[in-house]
């Protein structure tokens, strides 16, 4: 069945919970509703089913609007979010799904029992009919409730967070069950919290923010770093896996207030920059040629970087800016970089830092092997080393920083 929602506005106690919402669910489609708590997902499902009356807007099922819940429930299966705590037998629970199809004094006929048993089989709970509902596991309960929806013979399913409180295998199982059913002329609109499950199980995603549809489209169109930041207010990294997208949260660290400047280049500072950032140090670097891999690392973590155009010698302006930063920061680290004519000024900068007594030198290979700037450079380096702490690895450098920080605090 095709569901069309047009200009839907819902007010609950003078607050507009949904504002001018329009979308459609095509036949055989799974559409996920994503959005933070309180964004209006549940309200949307309850309004479409007819529990809440909209202030404005049209809801059409295959072009027709419904007048009452008893009429709606004949073709629409709605599953509320919270599961009941009851001691009814599983079969009695599933049989309740036949309610819309019974008339007069409601009693289950043999046909209804058969439909209920078939629904239980479809969700993989064959033989569970005489178990008591409240003795089942969370995943089994959820599957019984979905069997109840199936027993209604729905042509659109409205499911409110069917995977909440379930472990990962039950989450996948439940959504697989729903997807199997959706193939035969039945569509589904599912409110979800887990963005990764939504992207892997739905054809379309609607992202709701403050009662409006902020973004709509296929999962890889809708789920981006910008949309997640906008709707949920968190920083994530969106990754692709084949045709699918998934998100991982960006690691947020609390800044420890210690500023470290890294003199590096040619990839010698990358690891160090990431490590310092993860430990909460405020990192800057320079002078670096733009697009150098160290340069990219500093830019990625949002640190300050003194740059020079690619493949050009460090100019006077960049150098003096570098010295300014060195004066400002608490520590300077000179990495195991190669020195040539182009970046010789960085060695002078390091010398300046050593004179200020805040330099740590990482020396993995002897300087002679990476010096391409002649004897002058050799002499300067020796002077530097005399006034600096020399370590053999990034880890040791950080250990020294951590210890210094500890002592100062």
């Amino acid at each position, binding site marked *: 069945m095709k569901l069309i929602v047009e200009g839907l506005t819902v007010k609950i106690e003078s607050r507009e919970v949904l504002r001018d919402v329009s979308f459609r669910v095509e036949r055989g489609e799974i559409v996920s509703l994503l959005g933070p708590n309180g964004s209006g997902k549940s309200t949307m499902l309850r309004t479409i089913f007819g529990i809440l009356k909209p202030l404005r807007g049209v809801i059409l099922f295959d072009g027709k609007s419904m007048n009452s819940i*008893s009429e709606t429930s004949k073709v629409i299966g709605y599953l*509320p979010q919270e599961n009941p705590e009851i001691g009814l037998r599983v079969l009695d629970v599933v049989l309740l799904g036949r309610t819309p199809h019974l008339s007069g004094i409601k009693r289950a006929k043999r046909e209804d029992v058969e439909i209920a048993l078939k629904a239980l089989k479809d969700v993989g709970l064959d033989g569970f009919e005489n178990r008591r509902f409240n003795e089942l596991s969370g995943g089994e309960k959820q599957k019984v409730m979905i069997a*109840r929806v199936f027993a209604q013979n729905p042509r659109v399913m409205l499911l409110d967070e069917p995977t909440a409180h379930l472990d990962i295998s039950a989450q996948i199982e439940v959504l697989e069950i729903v997807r199997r059913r959706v193939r035969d002329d039945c569509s589904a609109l599912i409110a979800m919290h887990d963005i990764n499950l939504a992207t892997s199980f739905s054809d379309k995603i609607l992202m709701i923010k403050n009662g409006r549809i902020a973004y709509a489209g296929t999962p890889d169109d809708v789920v981006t770093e910008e949309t997640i930041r906008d709707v949920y207010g968190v920083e994530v990294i969106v990754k692709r896996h084949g045709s699918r997208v998934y998100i991982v949260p960006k690691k947020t660290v609390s800044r420890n207030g210690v500023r470290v400047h890294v003199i590096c280049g040619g990839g010698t500072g990358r690891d160090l920059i990431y490590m310092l950032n993860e430990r909460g140090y405020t990192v800057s670097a320079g002078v670096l040629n733009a697009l150098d891999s160290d340069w990219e690392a500093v830019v990625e973590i949002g640190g300050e970087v003194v740059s020079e155009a690619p493949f050009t010698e460090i100019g006077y302006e960049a150098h003096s800016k570098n010295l300014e930063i060195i004066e400002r920061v608490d520590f300077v680290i000179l990495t195991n970089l190669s020195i040539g004519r182009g970046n010789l000024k960085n060695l002078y900068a390091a010398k300046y830092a050593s004179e200020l007594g805040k330099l740590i030198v990482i020396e993995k290979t002897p300087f002679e092997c990476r010096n391409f700037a002649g004897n002058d450079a050799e002499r300067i380096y020796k002077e530097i080393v005399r006034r600096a702490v020399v370590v053999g690895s990034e880890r040791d450098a950080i250990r020294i920083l951590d210890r210094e920080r500890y002592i100062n605090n």
Partner: protein
Amino acid sequence: MLIILNVLSALIGLSVGSASVGLLDILNAFIGKSDEITKQIVLNYRLPRLILAMLVGSSLATSGCAMQAFFRNPLADPYILGISSGASVGAAIVILLGIATTYNIMISAFSLALITAILVYKIGNIARFREQSYAILLAGIAVSCFMTGLTSILIYIAGRDMHQVVFWIMGSFSNPNWVDVNFLAPIAVFGISYIFLNSWNLNAILMGDEHAMAVGLDVRRFQKQLLAVVSLLTSAAVAVSGVIGFVGIIIPHTMRLIVGEAHQTLIPSTILFGSAFMPLVDVIARTATAGELPVGAITAMLGAPFFIYLLLRGL
């Protein structure tokens, strides 16, 4: 089995008492062959008393069962809408005014019970709760407390009639007559049938308002009807017998343990067990001592230990 239990308890109810009547005499009384005194005892005293006890037992038990489904709470009973305290006020007023006939007490208690239930429903309906049943529950507790306070004051004022009010509140089937039976019977038949025929819907509301609506039930309308019927049924039962506690809890729970929670089987067995249980308790009440104990006290004494058992068992 429950039907056999019913027949047995009926026979015991008719035969046992301060004047013991043999089974054969009972039969003779029915077909008009016994002496006048036995006939009087059996037909005009014990038979109405038996029928009354059966009707009250099944009415309270069925109402209790419906209320437990309505509130989704094992502790709910028929009096949760303030009916018992409302009825007490009604009875106390009539006794205080010195116009206490069976008929007057009955009508006054019945009316005040119904008024109280309506009041509770109205308050619960105004209150802004997503789950309306909680609002009604809380309103019921509040109004009940108020009415109980009012009853206490009335009892205090009553002075020498105090004994009569207190005895009425404790509940009993003494002074049975056909007026009571004729009053209660039609209401009981109607109310109990309504609840029985709505077993399916009771299962649905047991799942919660949201789930009941999800299967297409007009929950608000059904809840309104159910409350109206239970109020009527309970008020009528209380009006003829006083406040008999715990029947509405013990009987449905016992049956739940035996037949399970599905109302299609739970309701009929509750009706039958209720109508078998009440006459037996009544027999105990009138034979345990030389005088007559209030039935309400006996059920409470049976009910409380049972309740503790349920608690220990984890409900």
